[in-house]
């Protein structure tokens, strides 16, 4: 008897419509991109950049080529020269960002924390050349990113790898210092 009554009065369909009615009066979860943007979490894997060392003003890369060896899609091209003392100098460093799979292995393996995947992700363009980064454009990426960075000190999770035992890591990754955003520029 009850089931026949439920069938005639469409109780099952009304139950569903009650749920949708409640949702009309709740706050929508959508945001209107590009007018409102959601903030990404820390160490989000976005555009590549070469870190500008605050003490020397140039990049930190020592041309050990570990990142090129570990990259699964082989998108990093490095050229270096060795002088008599055995010291390497970097000649050419190029990343083809369109080949990159954004796995983060390069920033994890770099022993001096020279390369980083910043939290910047809006770099779509109409030509392929603008996404083929060489040494200078990687440094420019860093300058643009650190200018628009919200906080005062930038320290990426993949530089110090929380949770891993410290003696497994090379020296430069055990307790690296964050990059302080220069306050002088804001005063000017």
């Amino acid at each position, binding site marked *: 008897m009850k089931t026949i009554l439920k069938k005639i009065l469409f109780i099952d*369909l009304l139950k569903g419509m009650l749920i949708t009615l409640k949702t009309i009066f709740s706050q929508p979860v959508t945001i209107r991109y590009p007018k409102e943007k959601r903030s990404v979490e820390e160490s989000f894997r976005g555009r590549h950049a070469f870190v500008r060392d605050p003490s020397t003003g140039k990049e930190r890369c020592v041309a050990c080529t570990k990142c090129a060896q570990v990259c699964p899609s082989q998108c990093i091209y490095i050229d270096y020269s060795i002088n008599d003392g055995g010291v390497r100098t970097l000649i050419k460093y190029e990343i083809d960002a369109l080949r990159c799979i*954004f796995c983060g292995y390069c920033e994890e393996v770099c022993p001096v924390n020279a390369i980083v995947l910043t939290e910047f992700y809006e770099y779509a363009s109409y030509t392929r050349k603008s996404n083929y980064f060489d040494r200078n454009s990687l440094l420019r990426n860093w300058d643009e990113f650190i200018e628009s960075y919200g906080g005062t000190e930038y320290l990426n999770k993949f530089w110090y790898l929380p949770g891993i035992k410290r003696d497994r890591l090379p020296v430069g990754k055990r307790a690296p210092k964050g990059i302080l955003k220069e306050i002088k520029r804001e005063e000017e």
Partner: protein
Amino acid sequence: MGSMEIEKIDEKTFVLQMGPHHPATHGVLKLLCEFEGERVVKITPDVGYLHRGVEKLGEHKTYISAMTLTDRLDYISSMTNNIAYCLAVERLLHIEPPPRAKFIRTIVSELTRLSSHLLWLATHALDIGAMTVFLYAFREREQILQFFEKICGARLTVSYPRIGGVRLDVKDRVLEEIYNFMDVMLKRVDEYEGLLTENRIWISRTKGVGVISAEEALELGLTGPALRGSGVNYDIRKHMPYDAYDEVSFEIPLGTQGDTYDRYLCRIREMRQSSLIVKQCIERMPKGDILHPDAPDLDMPHQGKRKIEAGDSLWSGFIGFSNKKEDIMPKGEIYSAIEAPKGELGIYLISDGSGRPYRMRVRAPSFVHISAIPKMCKGHLLADVIAIIGTLDIVMGEADR
């Protein structure tokens, strides 16, 4: 372009090609259907439009780099694919991840199962016509992808599990947020059930459609919820437990009839069980390391000695090619399977001692499920074909590899 050989076309039948570009086939799948009136006489599926050569590429990369290939197999649930591969290599090396890493991996596995089942529910309901469920399920899935972003920095193709543990540690603040979200999730599953389970339209579209008995399902090689909907109790989390699944308690929902409605109920109940597993894991999370001391490093060599004694200089971990006395990996072969959201995902590895796999074979559940479509669709209408594709939960990324 090469012609498809259809053995014999009857003049009474009408051939329709649901081609590779189709919104309801969940990827690039070609179905050649022959109809008599509106009833299906024969269906011939054709796969291979997304074949990327994962098995061949895996032979040319080191074990650690090959993990990024497994990310992209079933691109909706990439954490479980990574864990399947890591389990196979760990069993080859005879190491086990430390307890904290096991619990983290279980949490992440179950979150992935939730995310995959939410996408299944959204697309299946959308194909049948219930469009509201699509947007509700994506609201929850967005939240889960944000948790993945907080844990490791990427939403879809994470390479978070590592051979011997996980890659980064999870903060307590993030675990608390996940715990609170699981309570919200349980209420939302009740909402989805309220919209669909007793709905007369849903019942008439899914009851009696795609019925398959237990013996036929085992012959065809179905696994996962497609097999459990027919009543066979086969879940790898209970049969061959891995990670922390033997330390949490959960139930396995089973169906009786073997039709689409039973498979739907199985997956909805699995979503509830996943939320309970995540809550139990967060309550019992131990403290400790997250990586086994013998786990291979990121820059593992292709050939040569595995352990390099160079102290703590800048070049510690540099590759030495000369000495080949000690093998990098033990020689042998191993087959290890996990309970992926779609079914049984198996990885078969053959190692010849060097740093690259000799043969990496991926047993994908979607590949086997697509071969079951012709048998399940016989005698049904065209609209039921769409419902059957949806209930089998197919992703072309792993069917084609």
